[in-house]
């Protein structure tokens, strides 16, 4: 945390050090990052609270808007797709909503995290504090969007009551995996946007493309029916590498089930694999973030 090097007592002019990250290795930087967050839990909490307050207070409908937002998005997709596709899976609103619910959270977190550092430029130039708390707060505040989304899910479930099952208790487990991945991704975009300001413009389009490439509006099973995928199995392998392929399928199986069957337990092996990969990704992006952090004040 201390960016100073003590002046040597013996020599008048100490050796120059140019490298911003100095002699701190990856393991040390990741440990520092974890320490930063742990020691500044209160700050993260205040930032999250401020974020929630602001987003709720700005709108006329307040919290109701948070519940309505994912529902309205679902209505748009259902209206559009029932015209284009005609014979979609049964209970299509619930089918889509199972993906919209986590996706809203991810986009809210990532968009917020992208500008989390540059928004606080004045502060960063004036106070030395661990900058990593800013994307942590942004990623965490996004959970609120998810929490209100579950209220919307509850409302929707009333209309599809035959699909209610005990498997809904798996939602927090899947959400925990998603949080780790979201956090890791947030560190990357937050640090990246300091150096490339147009990243905040690009990220919106990247997220939209990502949504359509993920099995949100369609299922992986439906994808296997497509001729192009059957002819090119490598595309299917690529799809499997998308974290949201695993997450959407997991959310869908516990909320909706399958077009022909009731809800069941998610693919725990796939989720565990994703969790391990996300933790590795998180360590990597924490390292990248901490490595770039000393330059923020100069560049912003």
């Amino acid at each position, binding site marked *: 945390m201390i960016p100073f090097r003590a002046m040597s007592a013996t020599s008048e002019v100490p050796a120059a050090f140019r490298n911003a990250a100095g002699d701190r290795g990856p393991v040390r930087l990741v440990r520092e990052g974890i320490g930063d967050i742990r020691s500044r839990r209160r700050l993260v909490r205040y930032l999250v609270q401020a974020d929630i307050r602001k987003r709720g207070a700005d709108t006329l409908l307040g919290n109701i808007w948070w519940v309505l937002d994912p529902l309205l998005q679902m209505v748009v997709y259902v209206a559009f797709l029932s015209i284009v596709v005609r014979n979609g899976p049964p209970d299509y609103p619930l089918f889509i909503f199972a993906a919209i619910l986590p996706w809203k959270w991810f986009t809210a977190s990532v968009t917020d995290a992208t500008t989390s550092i540059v928004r606080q430029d004045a502060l960063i130039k*004036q106070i*030395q504090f661990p900058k990593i708390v800013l994307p942590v707060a942004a990623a965490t505040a996004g959970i609120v969007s998810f929490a209100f989304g579950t209220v919307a899910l509850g409302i929707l479930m009333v209309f599809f009551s035959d699909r209610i099952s005990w498997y809904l208790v798996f939602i927090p487990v899947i959400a925990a995996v998603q949080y780790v991945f979201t956090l890791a991704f947030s560190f990357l975009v937050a640090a990246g946007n300091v150096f490339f300001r147009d990243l905040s413009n690009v990220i919106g389009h990247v997220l939209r493309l990502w949504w359509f490439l993920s099995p949100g509006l369609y299922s992986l099973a439906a994808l296997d029916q497509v001729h192009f995928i059957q002819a090119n199995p490598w595309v299917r392998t690529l799809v499997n590498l998308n974290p949201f392929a695993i997450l959407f399928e997991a959310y869908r199986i516990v909320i909706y089930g399958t077009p022909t069957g009731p809800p069941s337990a998610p693919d725990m092996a796939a989720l565990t694999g994703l969790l391990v990969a996300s933790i590795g990704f998180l360590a990597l992006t924490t390292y990248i973030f901490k490595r770039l952090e000393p330059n923020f004040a100069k560049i912003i």
Partner: protein
Amino acid sequence: MLIRRRQRPSEAKPDYAIATADLGVYYDLRFTKKTTIRSSFAEMIGRGRSRHFWALRHVNLMVQRGESLAVIGPNGAGKSTLLQVLAGIIRPSEGAVDVNGHVSGLLSLGAGFDKELTGRENILLGGAFLGLEDSTTRELLPSIIEYAELGDFIDAPLRTYSAGMRARLGFSIATAIDPDILLLDEVLATGDANFRAKSKARVIEIVAAAKAVVLVTHDMAWVTEYCNRALLIEHGAVVMEGEPAEVVEMHQAHTEEARARTAEAAKAAGVDPRIAPIR
């Protein structure tokens, strides 16, 4: 920012508050302000030379406990960069800096304030940013509110505050935490005459309590009256260090010269000599 330095076991605590040795800071012009992906690619493919701008170079200074050092100089001379290095916000590009004690910097006031939050919430948030324990901030809360003279406004959102009210709140927070070393950047000119007098009194108090102060200011009267040493920085280099009166005199002479020169050679557009390729 409250930096608690780890005590080196074999050495006694040095008696100085701040020391720098051949301190230098450069900015990489490839990355300053509003870089886009496209322009970076252009840089990479085209002239890959990095251009460095030395904001500060070869700065050697020593501030003893109880001293009040004024840093003066023209705009863009590197004064604020020096404070940022002392505060630990920027790492030196070369040389070294050693700071002994808790540092509090309010380089300019109210930077971290959230306009939607109330004054009270901003104090708690500010304390958290400064690294204070929440219980400490809550203890300090009444005295901060009282000192800032905000009255009932303390529970109103900050966007309803005047600039002076914000400045008062910022000053109260930064000085409430009783730092060993206080770094001030152009803060004495804020607020009305009343609060200005009050904030001067507080700074004098901190200096008197054997604590070091480094301040950047354009208020020359303050420099000669309350600082026991002054540092003149021009173009990133220390030009003069010593008695406030003498340094101020030199600064004013230089300012006059510069004014005369710009009036004469306004047409001649030259390249800033500090933008030079690094070998």
